[in-house]
């Protein structure tokens, strides 16, 4: 993001966002706060003496949005240090969290052993030092540890082998 962010205020003047992390945090708080409040309005509000399920979350959401506004406005103050959003490494995020989601998807049908192998292999791709040999070896070791510690050791209940084999 090479271009500095700018917003225009009602007067038409351009204000510089000095602290990008704070500005976007503020926006996030405002959005999430208003979101919670909006959904909470769908529940019974009640009165202060007899609060419905919507009362507390509604006002809490408003408070969050206000705090977000304070943070976002503070980010435009000419005083204080400025910063920029750090680079987002979406590749790493995708490999790591993708492997976790995949584990969740295949655990029931394929069982723990195959799921762990998939998890380890895919997660390992996130590293810039990835080698197939290392990842396969690691997967084998971790399958053995998981079997010994979790399945036989503390007797966790989970499918170990694929459903079509044990059926």
């Amino acid at each position, binding site marked *: 993001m090479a271009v500095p962010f700018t917003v225009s205020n009602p007067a038409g003047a351009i204000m510089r966002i000095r602290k990008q992390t704070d500005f976007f945090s503020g926006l996030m708080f405002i959005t999430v706060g208003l979101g919670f409040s909006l959904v909470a309005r769908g529940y019974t509000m009640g009165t202060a003496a007899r609060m419905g399920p919507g009362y507390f979350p509604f006002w809490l959401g408003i408070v969050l949005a206000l705090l977000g506004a304070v943070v976002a406005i503070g980010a435009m103050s000419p005083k204080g240090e400025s910063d920029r959003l750090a680079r987002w490494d979406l590749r790493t995020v995708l490999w*790591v969290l993708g492997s976790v989601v995949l584990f969740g998807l295949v655990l029931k049908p394929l069982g723990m052993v195959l799921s762990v192998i998939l998890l380890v292999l895919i997660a390992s791709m996130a*590293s810039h030092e990835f080698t197939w040999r290392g990842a396969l070896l*690691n997967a084998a070791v971790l399958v053995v540890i*998981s079997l010994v510690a979790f399945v036989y050791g503390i007797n966790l209940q989970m499918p170990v082998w694929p459903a079509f084999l044990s059926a």
Partner: protein
Amino acid sequence: MELLNHLALGFSTALSLQNLAYALLGCVLGTLIGVLPGLGPLATIAMLLPITYTLPPVAALIMLAGIYYGAQYGGSTTAILVNLPGESSSVVTTLDGYQMARKGRAGVALATAGLGSFFAGSVATLILAAFATPLSELAFKFGPAEYFSLMVLGLIGAVVLASGSLVKAVAMIVLGLLIGLIGTDVNSGVARFSFDVPELTDGINITGLAMGLFGFAEIIVNLEQRESRETFTDRVTNLFPTREDFRRMIPAVLRGTALGSALGVLPGGGASLSSFAAYSLEKKTSQHPHEFGKGAIEGVAGPESANNAAAQTSFIPLLTLGIPSNAVMALMVGAMTIHNIQPGPQVMTSNPSLFWGLIASMWIGNLTLVILNLPLIGIWVKLLKVPYRFLYPAILTFCCIGVYSVNNTVFDVFVAAACGMIGYVFMKLRCEPAPLLLGFVLGPMMEENFRRTLLLSRGDFHVFIERPLSLGLLVAAAALVAVVALPAVKAKREEAFQDE
């Protein structure tokens, strides 16, 4: 005398062969995971929580206490050997501990941290035992208004003393409170914010939340940073401090213990503030201030004792008032709730063997660390040599299996993945996730007490300032905010957190 009887009951519980074994196992596992670079106590405890779910309640809490101390000790080890603080409380340890390691005195630094922590832990255990009864009695005088105000004070205290931007931290608490409200409302039975997803009616699982926010997000950030760090793993030979080391270390340990015990009791005080405070105290009182930052043994002994003492005394608000004072304590609440124990003043009377057993096992956990971990340091150090590309898939595997096993549902695995993404966004936006966890745990409790207060007062908000205890707590919270907002204090505070 009563104190001794209580402690005797505690030790007779904690010293049963089975409970002792769990304390040992907890310590070993806690150290094992805690020593891994980039995994702080919070992530470690989140990872190991599921293991304790299958145990009986007393054993589970005892094992958790072991994990807690192990994780803290593991964190100090990484701080000293790799210059990589697992959490903010060991940041200070890296300053002089790592320098000692560079001079070939890694063993002495580790022993100092271990011995100092043990001494501090022992003293703090006694303080905890002594304060537990009177504070619990005070807690019984609390009505819902007082509880609500106390939680406000606790939450404000937690962020005032923590690092970073105050407004952002408060916003993170509020966000946590809101996330904590997801699920079925106990009063009306309405499923809130569940969007017709049946799994969400039970609320978000705390294990998944903590693992995602702290475990997964940290892994991703660690993978992004490709710089290599110099580790001093071959030079851990001479463990025992010399006579001169002892002479310089003992006063520092005593000062650190006193400071840490006092600060730990404060709502939100706890480990990180006390280690910073202890470090500056040592630097100010030292006869060799120029040595600080270059491997002064006081710079390890003081903060390490202080953070362990504070870690111990921060159990006081949790066990007597039922209010967690930091994110680790919030996880403890989560663990207790799973065993159907509602932390608070009633635990001590309704389940004395659990209460005192837990306190005794903390001391045992500390002792185990000294006699077991110091000799075993070589093994932990070998773990540091395992390349990260093998470590993080292992961490992911244990997290996934662990989070699945809590409720035997893959939904929690997806929750953890989602929280990992959210945690990554927080890190990029420089939002500290620890206050969120605290809010998450307190959310339902706060709403419940808020509702009850206003029900009793027929909707009159003045009740919070009309009851003297409640007013006092709120004034204290406001005073904390005011003090931090003072320009002079603000500058000092920013200076103190600059090293992070």
